[in-house]
């Protein structure tokens, strides 16, 4: 375990330093700018790997905490910390940023300097959000991250970029405002913005929220996060934002930004408002399941390839929300894993769609067809990624999906059964679109001479493929590091169960005789907690 040091601050602000350096450069030497951005983001990724040593396996609570007084009245502190969940989300962010830089290597030709500055600032905001343990600081980074993303869409996007950017900002802001109200309410009640302190106050019963108040607060936070996820029916900004965003924007948006929503639910909604979470769970789950099925069905019939991938995110993130609100530690683990896996798979899908766009300047599926012939390598990568996205075992998508469904089934078999339909539908939309894009004879003459993956593209895709495969086989590396953090969330949201479990394990060890009689109930109880 690392002591002292300011690793988290370094990780937050290193890209900002890089962005500053870029700003000082002359704007016309594109190659140099790109190289600097690449070096900065790669270095950031390498730095972030140190986190793996900083967060010991099995350690509960926040690690590598940093605390500094910032504003005295109201007492706003610079409080950072990391646990198993946020660590991997940060790793995902720092991994996807250099990939995004590389993906924008040749497709971004105007305002190159500004583009990479925005990309690095986005990284600052996202990493900051994941590390913040002070609600005000969290909110600050939350908003900070919004600006570069909106600009990435609005400046470097496609035809309807301004519409999409404005929609993105307004949607997100609506949620943010509600969250801000919630944050201020909590401050009024507890006198602090410090997340662990508020958490303690609530857990110890020093502040007892009336059910109605708790529900309102829950909703204030939840709406902000649900928009970000996006949870059905708050998802309509997503297809527009994705279709209009440049490739790097889409990768960051799908890969990382959506996870801020589900991360927020795990970090704030559940621990701070456990009762309200329980009461809302069934409605949230219904929306999540609708999202899974609806997202998949709508995705299936999209004529626009990028929109198709965007809607598939609605479906995949539905799984994550379901896993969180099933309140089962297996599904919670699965939810964390699915966030990471989705970041890689969908990130890779957007990269591939972007590569097709670079060649043909369209996302219309009808414009493609038979692309396997001119570009077999790209086709192979696309299939690989599609398979990971549809949850083929041994690739990353399966682990999360399986754990979510398995865990959810233990407590709500009906939810899991409905959600499992998504498994069928994901095969439908991915394989159908794959067939229309890559199989068959070439239908559009222009496509006959398209070049296959370039060396740069092959490096990007191979990296993604290796991570995909590794996450599919070596999932234990990640799950054993996230186990303690998800267990903490479980204990916070269900303190009663955790208590009962401890009591039971002390007094009445599970014997073989009662397994035949009541092993069903016991096993269900047991599953949740150990």
């Amino acid at each position, binding site marked *: 375990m690392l002591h002292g040091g300011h690793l988290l601050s370094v990780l937050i602000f290193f890209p900002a330093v890089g962005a500053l350096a870029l700003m000082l450069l002359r704007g016309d030497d594109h190659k140099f700018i790109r190289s600097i951005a690449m070096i900065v983001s790669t270095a950031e990724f390498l730095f972030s790997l140190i986190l793996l040593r900083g967060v010991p396996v099995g350690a509960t609570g926040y690690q590598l905490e940093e605390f500094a007084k910032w504003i005295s009245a109201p007492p706003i502190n610079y409080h950072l910390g990391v646990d198993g969940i946020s660590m991997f989300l940060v790793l995902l962010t720092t991994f996807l940023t250099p990939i995004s830089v590389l993906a924008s290597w040749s497709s971004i030709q105007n305002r190159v300097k500004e583009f990479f500055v925005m990309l690095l600032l986005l990284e600052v905001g996202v990493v900051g959000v994941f590390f913040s343990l002070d609600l005000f600081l969290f909110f600050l980074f939350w908003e900070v991250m919004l600006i570069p993303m909106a600009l990435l869409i609005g400046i470097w996007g496609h035809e309807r970029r301004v519409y999409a950017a404005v*929609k993105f900002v*307004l*949607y997100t802001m609506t949620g943010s405002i509600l969250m801000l109200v919630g944050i201020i309410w909590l401050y009024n009640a507890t006198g602090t913005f410090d997340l662990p302190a508020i958490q303690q106050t609530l857990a110890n019963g020093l502040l007892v929220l009336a059910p109605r108040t708790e529900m309102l607060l829950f909703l204030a936070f939840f709406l902000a996060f649900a928009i970000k996820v996006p949870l059905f*029916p708050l*998802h*309509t*900004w997503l297809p527009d934002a994705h279709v209009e965003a440049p490739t790097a924007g889409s990768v960051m948006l799908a890969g990382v930004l959506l996870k801020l929503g589900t991360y927020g639910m795990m970090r704030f909604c559940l621990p701070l408002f456990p009762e309200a979470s329980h009461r809302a769970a069934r409605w949230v789950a219904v929306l999540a399941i609708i999202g899974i099925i*609806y997202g998949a*069905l709508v995705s*299936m*019939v*999209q004529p626009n390839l990028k929109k198709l991938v965007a809607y598939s995110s609605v479906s995949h993130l539905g799984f994550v929300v379901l896993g969180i609100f099933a309140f*089962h*530690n*297996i599904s919670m*683990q*699965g939810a964390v894993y699915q966030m990471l896996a989705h970041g890689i798979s969908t990130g890779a899908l957007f990269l591939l769609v972007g590569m097709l766009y670079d060649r043909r300047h369209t996302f219309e599926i009808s414009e493609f067809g*038979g692309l396997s*012939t001119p570009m077999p390598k790209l086709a192979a990568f696309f299939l690989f990624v599609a*398979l990971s996205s549809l949850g*083929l*075992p*041994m690739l990353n998508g399966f*682990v999360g999906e*399986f*754990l979510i*469904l*398995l*865990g959810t*089934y*233990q407590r709500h*078999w009906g939810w*899991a*059964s409905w959600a*499992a339909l998504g*498994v*069928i539908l994901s*095969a*439908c939309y991915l*394989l*159908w679109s794959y*067939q229309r894009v*890559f*199989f*068959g*004879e070439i239908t559009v003459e222009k496509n006959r001479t398209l070049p296959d993956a370039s060396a740069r593209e092959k490096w990007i895709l191979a990296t993604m493929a290796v991570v995909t495969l590794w996450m599919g*086989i070596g*999932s*234990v590396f990640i*799950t*054993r590091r996230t*186990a303690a953090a998800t267990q903490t969330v479980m204990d916070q949201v269900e303190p009663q169960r955790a208590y009962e479990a401890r009591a039971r394990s002390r007094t009445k060890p599970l014997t073989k005789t009662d*397994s*035949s009689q009541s*092993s069903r109930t016991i*096993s269900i109880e*047991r*599953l*949740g907690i*150990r």
Partner: protein
Amino acid sequence: MPAHPILEYLWIIPLLPLLGSAINGLLGAKWPNRIVNIAAIGSTGLSFLCALEAVREFFDSGQVLFRKEFFAWITAGNFRAGFDLQMDQLTVVMVLVVTGVGWLIHIYATGYMAHEGGYYRFFSYLNLFMFFMLILVLAANYVLLFVGWEGVGLSSYLLIGFYFLKKSAADAGKKAFIVNRIGDFGFMLGMFFLFRTFGTLDFQTLFAKAGLWPAEAMGQFGTFTIACLLLFMGATGKSAQLPLYVWLPDAMEGPTPVSALIHAATMVTAGVYVVARSHILFTYAPTAMLVVAIVGCATAFFAATIGLVQTDIKRVLAYSTVSQLGYMFLACGVGAFGAGIFHLMTHAFFKALLFLAAGSVIHAIGGEQDMTKMGGLSKKIRWTYGTMLVATLAIAGAPGFSGFFSKDAILVAVAGKYWLYGFGLLSALLTSFYMFRLIFLTFFGKPRYDEHKVHAHESPRSMFIPLVILALLSIVGGWLAAPEFWGHANYFEDFLNPVFASPTQSVKTIPVDTAPRVGKFLFAFGEAMGRASMEILWTYAAIAVGTALIGFLIAYWLYIRQPRKADDLAKSLRPAYTTLLNKYYVDELYAAVVVRPLVWLSTNVLWKAADVAGIDGTVNGIAHGAAAIGDGVRHSQSGNTRSYAVWVVVGAIVLLAIIFFWPSGAKTPVGLVR
């Protein structure tokens, strides 16, 4: 070095084909076929040798069940899915069939695919299939089994769609994967349910725990029944049973070696394997067993009827496969798991042979698959003809051939249940008919192809040597069961007894009175042989052979003696004939009831109406509304001092009115009055 090196490192058996696949897939594009062959055949051949050695070591070690955990794959809470492999007698059969038959088919494919583009790609996929199939049969828990389960589905998808330029091939691949996914949906729920009930998905622990539970009664819809039906749903997808069989006939779009290996000998039997593997659960769930038996029997009959009229040589074989898989499920459904696996093995031999021989025929006459354009080939391609005849005799159940013993074992097992037995027998008749129809149409009569253009020729040696080996296996493959007819044991089922010990008891104790009367005369013969149960055995065998003979005679009469009669018959039974020819219109039904409505619903209701017009329309509506309000209110900002004064007065009055007239006792609006 450990005492049992291969057994201790059991993962080497699946890993070898995976290496072959990776090498060919990544590097093979630039290699000549010869080097691709070395990687592909070498890896599978080595895998076969390793499997043989592992089996030897397994028996050498004298264990009932060898099991080893290699590494933890997924863990969460108290859930653990490991890369754990196991070996028992059932695995032995499966592994040897998969690697052995698989290897032969690989060798065959080097000849068959020699002139096709994407040679390296083909073998990369084929080796990948071997990897997943071996994982499937070696897995020691349901989750790892599911890895193989989905993986073979993927390989099947890739290989069916191998000729991806053809839309029908790409369609068929996609259909196979999606239909399988429907089954997998059930399989996954089955796993979740088992985990919920028993807290583990590990075979050994799970079955041990399940064994402590009381068995359910017939008609009871308890835990075991639910779990088994869900697992069986997966099996109906993978093993092409009603109602999810529709993908298999279309899968014939793939190259013929693929049809032989994946869609006949190995992958499609995975469902049977799963049911046999879970036999403890199934035997505790008689209701589920009945469903399995009925579905199996119905499929066996249903598919056989479609096979009667198909003219594409591979499609006939495809429906035949569906039908034979039905037999295997029928056996499992009545608790004769040993017989089911026995038929799985013999079927792997003769059906692989049939497909390979069909491939040889297709190869010989330049790619033609329509039997109405063949004929008279028996003299031109003797080896192919000879081996195919052997396979036909085996599948029809000619005495002494492997299929005779395994099919007989199944029919004996179901004998007590008249309906199942009757339909089983009827399917045997149909099988014999359509197979001999295939032989007669293909090899007899006058050539119906253009002899000037097509010069039928025997296939290269790499193709017919596997044919000969498989033909030998198709003959001797069932002989382990033969001693039963002389009062000894069925050595094959005895061999599997350690696995199926408890459930198979019921099979051998058929009460005498279930023997049909027609066989009474054979009792005397049986008595002479000295054992009571043998009379029954001989009786059933005689009935089965007699039935098959009838099928043969009808085919002989219709296609050799009176070749016109077949067409006349088709004309006089026009509606029935067209229904069969169109496969009962099941594909059309599914398209009309499921596929098209779903696409329509998704496009018009969910996407265009709900998403774009409904939700997004509301969002944009709010935005426009806000803009409109802003626009309206903008006019109040006129810059005119007098109008501002009026607004101030109006505001003051409203405020005062609220304060004074607010009902006493009620809370005032927040913050308005302190």
